[in-house]
């Protein structure tokens, strides 16, 4: 088995945070966790190439990195691509996820990585990848590499992959068909009995959970503050210049309102398949309340309305997607020096 292994600067032995800007470099042998991987796999498995890149460089130049790594993996004629384990290192996880996903799609060879459940790379890539649950830090390196090796063997051989808890990877949020011995009614009664008898049981339908976000402190003086309007109601300029989808939107847009006191229906349309848009179409201020906020700006109650409103369409959207949209909008909000946001949701 020919393996290409991706590591960050730390696990690749280049250095710590001071080397986070190191560009992509390579070795033609196993390095660090790669040696353990070779040993664990045994049976002639060889890391034929190790690719190492600094965490900052990787995230700041992700597109170039992905292209370069896919090319190196192709040249190496690899059977398997492995990245990490990344534990709770966020930049490392983001890069590992992007690389595994690109190698799988573009070269059609299996990829395996490992991260802590809360690594941001998990949210973004869990649906498409086998991500072994690594825990927060390198304390369980050996076990983690063993699980990665077990999955890798099966993936390369084309053997069926068991459930997440059997194989030790993070749930992908996929539902697959399976033959079972008991009807759903029987399984339901079994679960209810287990619950009242305090025995453990596995739900077949885990409820999505949202981790609480600490409430940020409010604004001390709104009359000096810059406020931004955002909506998930799909209001876009006529012609929908960014092609924001009416459901499961993958994009958002920023639209100029700097000269406007009021939004006029003839300038806008609504790209949202989840509510009756006629009232907002007739007067978009019913969704993005610019007229009222502009009045309050003129009266001095707020310092300044940011010159653009942000918009996307919040309907039937996978969380991995909406979390990315949220992160991108948050970057924009920080960049523009916005102090507070009014978000209108349909």
């Amino acid at each position, binding site marked *: 088995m020919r393996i290409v292994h991706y590591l960050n600067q730390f696990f690749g032995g280049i250095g710590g945070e001071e080397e986070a800007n190191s560009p992509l470099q390579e070795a033609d042998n196993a390095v660090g966790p790669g040696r353990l991987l070779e040993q664990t796999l045994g049976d002639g498995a060889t890391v034929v190439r190790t690719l190492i890149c600094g965490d900052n460089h990787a995230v700041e130049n992700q597109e170039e990195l992905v292209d370069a790594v896919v090319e190196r993996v192709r040249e190496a004629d690899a059977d398997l691509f492995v990245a990490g384990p990344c534990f709770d290192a966020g930049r490392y996880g983001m890069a590992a996820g992007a690389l595994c996903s690109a190698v799988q799609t573009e070269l059609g060879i299996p990829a395996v990585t490992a991260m802590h459940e809360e690594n941001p790379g998990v949210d973004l890539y869990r649906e498409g990848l086998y991500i072994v649950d690594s825990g927060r830090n390198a304390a369980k390196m050996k076990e983690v590499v063993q699980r990665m090796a077990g999955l890798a063997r099966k993936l390369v051989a084309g053997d069926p992959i068991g459930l997440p808890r059997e194989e030790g990877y993070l749930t992908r949020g996929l539902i697959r068909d399976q033959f079972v011995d008991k009807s759903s009614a029987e399984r339901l009664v079994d679960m209810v009995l287990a619950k009242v008898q305090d025995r453990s049981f596995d739900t077949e339908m885990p409820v999505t959970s949202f981790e609480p976000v600490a409430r940020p402190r409010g604004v001390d003086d709104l009359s000096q503050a810059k406020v931004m309007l955002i909506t998930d109601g799909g209001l876009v300029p006529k012609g929908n210049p960014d092609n924001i989808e009416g459901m499961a939107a993958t994009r958002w847009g920023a639209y100029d309102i700097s000269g406007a006191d009021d939004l006029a229906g003839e300038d806008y349309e609504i790209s949202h398949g989840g509510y009756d848009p006629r009232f907002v179409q007739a007067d978009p201020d019913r969704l993005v309340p610019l007229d009222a906020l502009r009045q*309050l700006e003129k009266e001095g109650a*707020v310092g300044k309305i940011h010159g653009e409103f942000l918009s996307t369409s919040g309907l039937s959207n996978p969380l991995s997607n909406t979390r990315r949209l949220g992160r991108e909008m948050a970057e924009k909000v920080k960049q523009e020096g916005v102090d507070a946001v009014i978000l209108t949701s349909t």
Partner: protein
Amino acid sequence: MEKAGVPVVQMTSALPIAKMVGSNRVVLGAGIVHVAGDASLPADEEKALRRKLVEEALDSLKAEGNAD
């Protein structure tokens, strides 16, 4: 955005969803189809309603008078 430290008030009529996802500041809107308005009101009353909703939203964004 709140993870980045910027306070956000969500104006919505779908209160259960705002609660489910854990929004920290919520103003109840005037309906799913017109969060910040009410098409059944005369124009001037609708404007007054919108202003009241926006004022409520701004109030919730203030540090003063809010338990942080």
